[in-house]
């Protein structure tokens, strides 16, 4: 548990020290995020060896104190967010095009990581509200870094995020009013399916769906991510939208009574399919590169939402592995895609997708990173996305009457193939390639390729991964 605590507090201390010393050195942030990664890895090892652990803050008895809970999945998420943060920090420091070097990006991104680690570890409803606020504010502050053009979308994102937090908070208040306890695992034992609980859970779910940009409430995401600087949109898409999803999963798999979960499962699963299809459809049609990648985030979250919905509907804990593999694979792939897209856009000097003609000649590595990341989003073997889709498909074939879900996944795959290969095919067009404005930044291209290769290698370590996610040895 000490390692997890170090992973939690280190970014917060770094942010405070950076502000106190008024320094904007990326190196300090890179070093500390490396240390955080090591601490997180150590906590993962620790939790694999001697099982889940709890830490009551201030040693107060359970109903009163906030409890930190270290499960294998939490430790894995700690490692995942530390890795993505390290990658984006190195990109922000190293890349020529990153506009975030001489701004407060460094302390803000450390705070973002700190609040995310606090969210992974905590198990208290109100504590989640405060971490969500911290996450939302940090994300909006980071989006606002890229100057005036981002203020409009940032403000809209902030207001909707505040509204969503208050919807969530009302749900928490009702749940507290009904059961008098704030800890999720204690709640799990006490809840039974009556109107107040149902309404409280649905309020919390709607609030979290808006914050995680899940399908019906995703409209703020494309504008916010497209106008944010590259490093920030990579962080947002890979990490920030995953926090609320984690809480949603804890709420429904641990907190809610089974009747409520079974009743709500199909609604979420259908929303997932709708996200897949509609998100993919708008990604297919948008002319702007970064909003294409943002819409693909909305679509890919559809997979996770569907896994969650089916997990609740069939009460099948094996689907946890599918849900979290989607999240991990999407996080890595999306970080690489956004970095690649940012580099392409900065070198070609245009936001449009049509400007990508002939990039396989001018910027082969960046385009290769984009394609490989796209491959994982589609779920081509042996990428992490494929593994997750395989685990999601397996329970679906138990009985034949699950065929609508299979058709949903099929459509989702084809549409995601559509918008990824729309860009890749364009890149092979050598009719009149668009020459890059100035010399492309080799280092940033290879950096963008790194997470894509990691996500493709994910399948090779699938055995320990699935063991961590479901706790059942292969």
């Amino acid at each position, binding site marked *: 548990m000490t390692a997890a605590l170090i992973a939690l507090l280190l970014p917060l201390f770094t942010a405070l020290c950076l502000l106190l010393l008024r320094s904007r050195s990326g190196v300090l942030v890179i070093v500390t995020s490396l240390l955080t990664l090591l601490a997180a890895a150590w906590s993962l090892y620790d939790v694999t060896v001697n099982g889940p652990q709890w830490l009551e803050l201030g040693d107060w008895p359970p109903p009163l104190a906030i409890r930190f809970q270290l499960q294998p999945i939490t430790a894995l998420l700690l490692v995942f967010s530390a890795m993505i943060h390290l990658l984006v920090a190195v990109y922000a420091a190293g890349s020529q095009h990153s506009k975030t070097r001489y701004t407060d990006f460094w302390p803000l991104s450390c705070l973002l990581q700190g609040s995310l680690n606090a969210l992974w570890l905590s198990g208290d409803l109100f504590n989640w509200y405060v971490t969500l606020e911290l996450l939302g*504010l940090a994300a909006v502050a980071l989006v606002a870094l890229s100057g005036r053009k981002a203020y*409009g979308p*940032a403000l809209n994102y902030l207001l909707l995020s505040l*509204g969503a937090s*208050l919807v969530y908070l*009302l749900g928490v208040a009702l749940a507290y009013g009904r059961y008098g306890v704030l800890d999720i695992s204690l709640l799990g034992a006490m809840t039974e399916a009556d109107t107040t609980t149902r309404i409280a859970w649905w309020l919390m779910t709607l609030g979290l769906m808006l914050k995680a940009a899940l399908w019906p409430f995703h409209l703020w995401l494309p504008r916010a991510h497209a106008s944010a600087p590259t490093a920030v949109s990579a962080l947002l898409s890979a990490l920030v939208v995953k926090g609320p999803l984690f809480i949603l999963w804890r709420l429904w798999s641990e907190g809610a009574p089974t009747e409520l979960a079974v009743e709500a499962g199909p609604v979420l699963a259908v929303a997932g399919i709708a996200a897949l299809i509609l998100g993919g459809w708008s990604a297919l049609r948008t002319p702007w590169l970064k909003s294409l990648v943002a819409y693909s985030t909305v679509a890919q979250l559809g997979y996770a939402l569907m896994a969650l919905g089916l997990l609740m509907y069939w009460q099948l804990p094996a689907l946890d592995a599918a849900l979290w593999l989607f999240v991990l694979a999407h996080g890595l792939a999306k970080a690489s895609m956004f970095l690649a897209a940012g580099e392409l856009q900065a070198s070609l000097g245009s936001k449009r997708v049509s400007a990508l003609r002939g990039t396989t000649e001018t910027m082969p590595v960046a385009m290769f990173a984009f394609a490989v990341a796209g491959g994982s989003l589609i779920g081509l073997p042996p990428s992490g996305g494929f593994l997750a889709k395989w685990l999601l498909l397996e329970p679906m074939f138990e009985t034949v009457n699950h065929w609508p879900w299979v058709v949903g996944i099929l459509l989702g795959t084809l549409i995601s193939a559509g918008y990824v290969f729309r860009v890749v095919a364009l890149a092979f067009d050598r009719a009149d390639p668009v020459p890059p404005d100035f010399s492309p930044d080799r280092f940033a291209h290879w950096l963008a390729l790194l997470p894509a290769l990691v996500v493709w290698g994910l399948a090779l370590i699938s055995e320990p991964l699935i063991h961590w996610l479901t706790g059942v040895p292969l």
Partner: protein
Amino acid sequence: MTQVLFYLILGVCLWALGLYGLLRLKESIRRIISVNIMGSGVFMVMVALAARSEDPDPVMHALVVTGLVVAISATAFALRLSVADVQEDDQ
């Protein structure tokens, strides 16, 4: 119809009003005000819940204090953002 229930319902109405305002209005300062109204609605529900036992529940009060500070910081940021967004238009 006890006092607690009256304030619970009042809190819920304020919350709904705030949500309605947030979704319907277009001018940013008014949307920020409606978010504040929504927040005070939730806080009223929480304080009413706290007033159920004769010596009021301190946990709820602590949570509402925390909520208030979060609300003020978010409002300050939102207002500065809306002002910066408008001002840049003029120069």
